[in-house]
């Protein structure tokens, strides 16, 4: 038992952190929101092997590697990287598991290489496809059928302008059979896990920037970080994030076991709460500047609110956890 990242896994995180820092995500997020879907960053992520983590070797990938996926999604969240990244990762699992030999062979190598942007939807679960106008392929999983789809009308206005959400409609059937809902379930769980990891990264970045701000912003002749009310908010934020992280890695390690959906749900519920509480603290501790569109942390704050309910609300996930807890003998505490 060694429940910490190994050297290579840490290296992957460091590499992505370096790449995303250099890319300067705040400007990219704003351009993405304005409809500029430049793929420089996407290709670079592909070259680093991010998308290959969800694609099996026989289709040109290296996956599935759930722990590495969590590492990568954490860094992507930390930099609030725009685009349907989680959706593309989920699409890889969906195509691979749906017994759709033709489309899988066509798309998976391109996904792995960072040459395909994919979005997806699923009636009831994923009602709108993220960044569908930027996607090379849109998948729609509906019961036993897997379709390709196209956007149906313009994006719906949302809190986070960098999340462009489109209603879609099916055009062509790619696969049919019991493998489709099975693959859709795995894809959903992987996406929820990646989303949880993104939330943890978003929360971590917000905590770091807020601590920095609290050390430098002065009122009443001293740094606001000296005030206990501020300290305690930040200590609570750290505590929430610190205890949500092991749930995400624990879930990654149960990939392929019957506990995977339950563990993913535990991670997603905890990460949503921890990141959201951190975002509220970040906003409060920054004061008015944090509430402005111009100040970069706001890009993180609104993304946290969006992801909190994406891929299942905290309540959905809590219900899933409880449904999966086995019966125990007694109901008394000792």
């Amino acid at each position: 038992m060694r429940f910490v990242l190994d050297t290579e896994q840490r290296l992957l995180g460091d590499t992505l952190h370096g790449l995303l820092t250099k890319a300067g995500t705040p400007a990219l997020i704003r351009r993405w929101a304005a409809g500029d879907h430049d793929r420089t960053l996407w290709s670079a992520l592909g070259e680093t092997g991010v998308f290959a983590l969800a694609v099996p070797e026989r289709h040109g990938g290296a996956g599935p590697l759930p722990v590495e996926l969590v590492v990568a999604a954490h860094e992507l969240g930390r930099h609030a990287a725009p685009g349907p990244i989680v959706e593309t990762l989920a699409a890889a699992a969906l195509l691979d598991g749906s017994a759709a030999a033709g489309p899988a062979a066509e798309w998976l190598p391109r996904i792995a290489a960072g040459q395909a942007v994919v979005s997806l939807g699923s009636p009831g679960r994923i009602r709108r496809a993220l960044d569908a106008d930027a996607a090379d392929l849109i998948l729609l999983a509906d019961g036993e059928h897997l379709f390709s789809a196209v956007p149906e009308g313009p994006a719906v206005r949302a809190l986070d302008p960098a999340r462009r959400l489109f209603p879609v409609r099916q055009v062509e059937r790619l696969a049919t059979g019991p493998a489709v809902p099975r693959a859709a379930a795995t894809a959903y769980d992987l996406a929820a896990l990646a989303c949880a990891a993104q939330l943890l990264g978003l929360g971590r970045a917000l905590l770091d920037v807020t601590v920095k701000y609290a050390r430098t912003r002065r009122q009443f002749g001293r740094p606001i970080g000296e005030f206990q009310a501020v300290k305690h908010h930040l200590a609570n934020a750290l505590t929430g994030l610190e205890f949500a992280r092991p749930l995400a890695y624990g879930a990654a390690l149960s990939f392929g076991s019957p506990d995977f959906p339950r563990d993913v749900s535990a991670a997603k519920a905890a990460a949503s709460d921890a990141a959201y509480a951190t975002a509220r603290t970040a906003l409060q501790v920054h004061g008015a500047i944090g509430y402005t569109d111009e100040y970069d942390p706001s890009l993180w704050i609104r993304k946290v609110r969006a992801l909190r309910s994406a891929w299942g609300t905290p309540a959905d996930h809590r219900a899933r956890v409880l449904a999966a807890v086995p019966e125990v003998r007694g109901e008394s505490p000792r």
Partner: protein
Amino acid sequence: MDLDLSPVEPFRAEVRDWLRRNVPATPLPSLETEAGFAAHRAWERTLAAARLSVVSWPEEYGGRGASPLEWLVFEEEYYAAGAPGRVSQNGINLLALTLFAHGTPGQLGRVLPPMAAGEVIWAQAWSEPGAGSDLAALRATATRADGGWRLNGQKTWSSRAAFADRAFGLFRSGPAAERHRGLTYLMFPLDADGVTVRPVGRLDGRPAFAELFLDDVFVPDRDVIGEPGQGWTVAMSTAGNERGLTLRSPGRFLAAADRLVALWRAHGADPLLRDRVADAWIKARAYRLKGFETISRADDAGAEASVNKVFWSELDVELHETALDILGADAELDGDWLEGYVFSLAGPIYAGTNEIQRNLIAERVLGLPREARR
């Protein structure tokens, strides 16, 4: 990164099997009563006879040299089996670890085996009426005497001191102005000449702790832990244990959370309480995984023990509050959940209040500026 527990499964199986055969079928009376204390002390002897009272200690002192992972697994099995609370906890989890770090070979040999066997139960005597969070303001004194020290003053809130045998605590051996510097760490018998123990009832009236009045109590030199005057440094090395994994291991919360889910189901699975029940279960699991992370790390977690302390103490309160809300109008009736609830309410207060822990997290983990001291 892995969570492969298979190497410790044989140990888990052995512990589970022993507990299945030995855990009393009917719960012992409350630990915080005289009869309950005696019953729990007898249970410690049973545990010790099977070499299960202090599994992580070296064999020469009554342990098995178990690894940190084996210890975590032992705790999981222990609480899952519904085994009795540990009356020896302040000795085996706090004093023993201080002795391992600072004790003389003589002290280890003399103190640890009877502690492991449940023959000597230890109480912690740190707090005073005027020194709680600000422990360095303590005033009880240790003055030099022939061959040892004389203790004078008052200690308070000493858990289970009403029935315990010996105590360990901090005393001022230098001028009060020296605060942290002039303190000495000593061990003394609670039945010694000059010691008066006054039991104090806790929230539900049970005498869970006591006040100690010390009037010229003699302590020989051999019962000083570490160097005289270095008591603060010595004591703070146990403080991390008290806040971290050692005092409250994940096992107890995992077991309580499983039973909370069972209680919720047995009472009709009220959807209004579902999120809270799920949260308690999720947090217990988070604490377990965090424990695995902590023991996997080579670097010292240090101030991060404060993060742990805030987390487990609040989890414990939330979990028991939820149980009582499930029980509805029966919540106020005596029973195991109520006992657990009353116990949990003290968690955010002892072992350094959660406000103090948050200050430490902010200053030592996050690096926020220290408050200007007056």
